[in-house]
């Protein structure tokens, strides 16, 4: 066993994987003058692996692209295959898909809120918000069988139905979030320390966001009301009232700073609850999958010829998958792109001119799907000395800044 060596092909990886990223900064005093992004070398070559798998197998591979977006990638992938092969999804399945995707958004945003608090040294909020996140994870386990990697998506529909008996349990969890929401809002939006650390920090202007093709809450916090659920509604979103959320809904102004990104994410939790409630009220009856027999489905896909794209608004922004089927068992091309891929570039304008202690919260503010920044190399311009700051050091600096500026 120990002798066995693997040669892992390095494929196109999108930064949504838990992979290290190196940011090279040039700083002068406390100010960041230049930022260089260098994503790490820890690539799994997912798309290359997809070349040896049939479309149904790829669903499960796509699910493992990201642990948090584990409904978003299969959602986009299934839509791409359905578009390529011309498969119609039953309406009930479209509603179930949306419910799962929105539950995922709640858990992702609550997780992010906790992480953001942790980055500025507010650990009690981290514990409280992650405790709150447990409820939605339990609900996801109840509905799909898994807390993450739900395994519910299938080409042409979903694998599990939501029965009448299960609906009260879903509503109970939604009520739980409605109850605690005012507390979360109070902590994040009215707390003077959080405001001090997030207001006018890491600003991304609307022009930069458009130029760099930013997606998701990062773009919306800069005032672009871009949301695929609103712009190009798919699945059940076409029947529901979805409006892109920008920070001016609450405050009347758009600053594009970290604080605005907090507002957008918190309001989206409320929006997700409303979407799920609308889905539960209007859910049609009927089949949950277009073709129940997998062998038949595979045969159908084997004969299919065509190409298609599948887009989905994941918690972090647009996920897009492209699939080309060419009358063979394996798809000819599978391309996946996660939102962080587009948002990565926005770090540069956000970080320029900031202080080192602000790096953690600014970097975290786009909700990157990268484990953490691996390490940061800091070049001291005066004496040219090179030192490496670990995440621990940075975190310490960040916490110190919070203590320093808190009255």
């Amino acid at each position, binding site marked *: 066993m120990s*002798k066995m060596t693997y040669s892992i092909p390095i494929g196109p990886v999108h930064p949504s994987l838990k992979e290290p990223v190196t940011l090279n900064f040039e700083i002068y005093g406390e100010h960041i003058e230049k930022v260089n992004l260098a994503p790490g070398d820890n690539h799994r070559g997912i798309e290359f692996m997809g070349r040896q798998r049939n479309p149904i197998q790829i669903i499960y591979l796509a699910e493992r692209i990201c642990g948090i977006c584990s409904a978003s990638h299969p959602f986009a992938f299934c839509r791409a295959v359905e578009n390529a092969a011309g498969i119609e999804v039953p309406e009930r399945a479209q509603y179930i898909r949306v419910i799962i995707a929105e539950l995922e958004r709640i858990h992702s945003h609550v997780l992010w809120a906790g992480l953001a608090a942790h980055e500025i040294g507010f650990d009690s909020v981290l514990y409280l918000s992650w405790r709150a996140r447990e409820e939605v994870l339990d609900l996801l386990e109840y509905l799909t069988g898994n807390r993450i990697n739900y395994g519910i998506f299938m080409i042409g529909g979903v694998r599990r139905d939501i029965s009448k008996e299960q609906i009260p349990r879903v509503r109970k969890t939604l009520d739980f979030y409605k109850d605690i929401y005012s507390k979360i809002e109070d902590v994040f939006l009215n707390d003077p320390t959080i405001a001090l650390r997030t207001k006018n920090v890491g600003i991304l202007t609307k022009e930069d966001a458009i130029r760099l093709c930013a997606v998701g809450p990062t773009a919306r916090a800069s005032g672009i009301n871009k949301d695929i659920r609103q712009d190009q509604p798919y699945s059940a979103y076409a029947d529901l009232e979805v409006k892109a959320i920008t920070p001016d809904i609450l405050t009347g102004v758009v600053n594009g700073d970290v604080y605005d990104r907090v507002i957008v994410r918190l309001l989206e939790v409320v929006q997700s609850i409303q979407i799920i409630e609308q889905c539960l009220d209007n859910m049609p009856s009927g089949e949950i999958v277009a073709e129940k027999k997998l062998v038949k489905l595979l045969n159908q896909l084997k004969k299919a010829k065509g190409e298609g794209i599948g887009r989905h608004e994941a918690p972090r922004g647009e996920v897009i998958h492209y699939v080309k089927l060419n009358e063979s068992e394996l798809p000819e091309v599978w391309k996946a792109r996660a939102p962080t891929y587009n948002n990565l570039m926005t770090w540069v304008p956000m970080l320029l001119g900031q202080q080192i202690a602000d790096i953690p919260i600014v970097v975290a503010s786009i909700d990157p799907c990268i484990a953490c920044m691996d390490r940061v190399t800091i070049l001291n311009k005066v004496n040219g000395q090179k030192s490496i700051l670990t995440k621990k050091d940075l975190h310490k600096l960040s916490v110190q800044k919070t203590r320093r500026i808190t009255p």
Partner: protein
Amino acid sequence: MEYMRPDEIVKLFKKRLNESAIIDSRIETKTAGLKKSIYSVIWLQIRLENFKEAIKLLCTIQFPHFAIISGNDIGEEIELIYHFSIYYAERFKEISINLTTRIPKKNLKIPTITDLIPGAQTAEREIKEMFGVTIEGLPNLPNIFLPQDFQKGVYPLRRDEKGVDKTVRKEDEVRKVE
């Protein structure tokens, strides 16, 4: 803002570019939900010589949202598909536009679009690394997805002799040897 219909957009492309520039065009309409709301996807295949022109034309409609570039090795040529969307930020209005072009392997070069759309840089660097396509006008930056010491002249997503198939050892083959 005035919104053009998908067929009008295709017509605009046909009118403003050379007649021979557009090899193939296709409009797909998809439905969603109980109300069967419609959204459109446009597929255009454009000749390499006119590709930059087509992107410029696209930018005149609205600054497009750039999603990603997909690549495909189809033998003598590399096919690149640029996925865009326009009319975003408005309910039911967004139209996806996919521009396809084919580059012969003998002369693997395509002009950069980062001068028009800076957000495309990561995707262009990825295509450069994975397919060995020279992006003209893109600054010579280090590898973004591949390791810095990755073998020169090997492109992981190519299907020909420049691909990585030879260096890949599949698990069952390794077991057989042992």
